[in-house]
């Protein structure tokens, strides 16, 4: 059983949003529905080759939680 990896998306300040790479299936819902276009598919891929999202424009994130609520896989959530 591989250890769970967490990714903090902004350095060094803590991120608004955390993506758990291990759980992401790359469905793209969060990227497509982020109302401020803060998320984007990164170069990291899931085992089946789909892009894992990253908080590309952290300054846009308003912590609306739409990504968290729509994700079917608990792979992305807002830091409360």
């Amino acid at each position, binding site marked *: *059983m591989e250890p*769970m990896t*967490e990714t903090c998306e902004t350095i060094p300040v803590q991120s608004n949003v*955390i993506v*758990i790479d*291990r*759980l*992401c*299936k*790359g*469905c*793209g*819902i969060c990227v*497509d*529905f982020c109302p401020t276009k803060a998320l984007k598919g990164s170069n990291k891929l*899931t085992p*089946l080759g*789909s892009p894992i999202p990253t908080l590309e424009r952290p300054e846009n994130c308003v912590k609306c939680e739409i990504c*968290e*609520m*729509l*994700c*079917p*896989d*608990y*792979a992305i*959530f807002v*830091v*409360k």
Partner: protein
Amino acid sequence: MKHPLMKYLREDWFPTVLCAGCGDGTVLQCMLRAIDEKNLDISQVVFVAGIGCHARLGTGYIAADSMWTLHGRAMPIATGIKLVNSNLHVVVLTGDGDCGAIGLSHFVHAARRNIGIVTVCFNNGIYGMTGGQVAPTTPKGTYTKATPYGNLEPTLDLCSLAQTAGATYVARWTTAHPRQLTKSIKRAFEKKGFSFVEAVTQCPTYYGRYALGTTSPSEMLRWFLRNSVTVERAKNLGQDDLIGKITIGEFVDVEKPELANEYRLQTAAKTQPHKDVNETIRQSPNDATTPR
């Protein structure tokens, strides 16, 4: 840092076996968020599922008492549980095929007798687990593996049926409305009687491909948003305008005597008044002999 709802889940079982973008995960999340926001003790919640993608997800992955049972038969199983221990929050997880086809009779009777269970119906409009066959909720004309020349049968409106059968709370939302879905599930937990929350969920692998011509979950969610009509608006639309639309909102929210409670009252009148009926019927954990 963990996902706020991971505390209810068996983390090492994830990622799930469900398809990427399947809306069932979103519905489950709304359910767990509802439980979390209502501060329910998860040890007092029992999930009873039938067979289907919803059941594969809703049992095992959740770190709580769950029963993965027979196709269409979650409702009577849940009825037995609730009658014996009415202190439990009994949740039925079902699908559109599970409760709209094989389990239809049990669905109607559970609603009719108003047994206090919360039902969440994962309606993806197709039989997903078995590879994409027509369901009672698949629109007429759809090409599926079981209807390669086009589905000839009209659909069944599960919420309408629940309402007619006597459910005390009936609501429908889609996975594109997670806040409202969560709120409705919370409301369902507050109800004493039979609650039915239908969650229209995206199946990008089959329904999307066969009925909508897309395998993109985002496309399907946008389709849900474009084609959802609220209950209030639907009142002013004709039958023709509603074809292909998903009516969302709360259809019923009433109170009626709940069955397990009715049993308590009737039974209490027949047995010795001071006995707690709940305790009488359940075996006490450390008893060597049965209560007489």
